[in-house]
């Protein structure tokens, strides 16, 4: 029993292995990019527009609004990273309705990659927004005693992100796999539907958490008096 698509290897050159995770990721990338290209090839700037353009606009403005609600006042700076995270994880879950497909997010390697991406993106956005000095100072606040705890928190939340997504996606695929052996009719379909829901929720959770971490890192802390006034 395979737990992860990493284990399905198509080509093996020692360290370099072309496994199902990478192939499925390429497939997802292809669909996302080609779909975007086709839809955005003829974009309308007038009042009338195509249904697909409407869908994309709803999606993008929805993401933008969510980012803004989390506390990032300029969502367009972050929409590329956070939006792509969401779309990638969501579409990875969505395609589980195709038989034989395994979501690349069901591989710990992929989720670790995404979590590392967040781990890098948080200080990157924090530094660009606040400057290096101010960003580093956030680790010794309220006092320098908090420094190790802050560092541990950084690491642990990254780990949590990776494991949470992996656990959810893997378990979904796993449950379906097990159920298929027990009762091959109807029940797996219900579980697939449940898996779709879980996948969407996970995509939302992952990107929202990333947004929250970025928001926490980019927020310029104001003195208490000023905050109170504000």
């Amino acid at each position, binding site marked *: 029993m395979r737990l992860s698509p990493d284990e399905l290897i198509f080509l093996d050159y020692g360290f370099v292995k072309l496994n199902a995770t990478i192939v499925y*990721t390429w497939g997802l990338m292809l669909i*996302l*990019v080609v779909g975007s290209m086709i839809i*955005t090839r003829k974009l309308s700037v007038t009042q009338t527009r195509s249904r697909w353009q409407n869908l994309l606009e709803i999606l*993008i403005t929805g993401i933008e609004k969510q980012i803004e609600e989390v506390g990032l006042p300029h969502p367009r700076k972050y929409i590329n990273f956070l939006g*792509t995270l969401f779309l*990638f994880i969501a579409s990875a879950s969505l395609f589980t309705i195709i038989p034989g497909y395994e979501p690349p997010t069901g591989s710990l*390697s992929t989720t670790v990659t*995404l979590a*590392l991406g967040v781990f890098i993106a948080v200080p990157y956005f924090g530094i660009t927004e606040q400057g290096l000095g101010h960003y580093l100072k956030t680790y010794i606040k309220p006092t320098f005693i908090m420094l190790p705890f802050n560092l541990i928190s950084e690491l642990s939340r990254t780990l949590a992100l990776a494991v949470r997504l992996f656990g959810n996606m893997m378990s979904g695929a796993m449950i379906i796999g097990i159920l298929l052996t027990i009762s091959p009719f109807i029940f797996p379909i219900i579980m697939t539907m449940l898996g779709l829901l879980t996948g969407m929720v996970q995509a939302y959770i992952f990107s929202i958490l990333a947004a929250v971490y970025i928001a926490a890192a980019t927020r310029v802390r104001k003195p208490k008096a000023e905050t109170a006034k504000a």
Partner: protein
Amino acid sequence: MTIDWFTVIAQAVNFLVLLWLMKRFLYKPVLHAIDQREKGIAEELSKAETQKGEAQKQKEEYDQKKEDLNRQSAVFLKKAQEDGQAERQRLLEEARDAAEVLSTKRHEALVMEEKSLRNEVNQRIQKEALAIARKVLKDLAGASLEEQMVGVFTQCLGNLDDMEIKTLTTALKTQPGKITLRTAFDISRELQITIEDSIQKIVQRKPEVNFEAVPELISGIELSVNGQKMSWSVADYLSSLSEGFEDLLKVKVR
């Protein structure tokens, strides 16, 4: 359930590529389209606002113009009414004048008619009276009316006062020509001699008398010498009758 580090690296590369591609093909064009549309809408709105303002301005202008026109038309109407009134007055006066002229003309025509009628009546009366007189005289005395008239005329000549006689003789002396005697009828030679004799008695010499018959005199005798005139006519007797007729006609005309 282990982490395959090659897959991690590959996925990181994949993710970076995906980030770039999505930015290139999804977010940029879609956000651009949204921005463009919003800009377009904002432009449309501001344009609409401007047009609304302009429309409002134009409406105010038109209202003002309408008001001006109304005021002007009221002024023109008033003027036209006044002009009309004046014109009416003028036409009325003209008509009145014309009517007056017409009435005057008619009155004159009536007067003329009256005059001619009166003349006609006079002449008829004279003729009739003369005819009656002639018939009566003829029936009563057997003498012709002419004889009677000549008789009366000679009597008149005989009754002339000194002043009249002097005038007559003076006129006769300065007049080398004949004396003209006009009668309404041809008179007989005896009567001519009677008249000549009467004249001779007055002027003390034999006159040369030229007898003329003028029917317009109706019944009368007229003697003219060098502009001096002496006459007797039934017309004299008829004048009172004629006056009576005139009075009657005047009453009728009124």
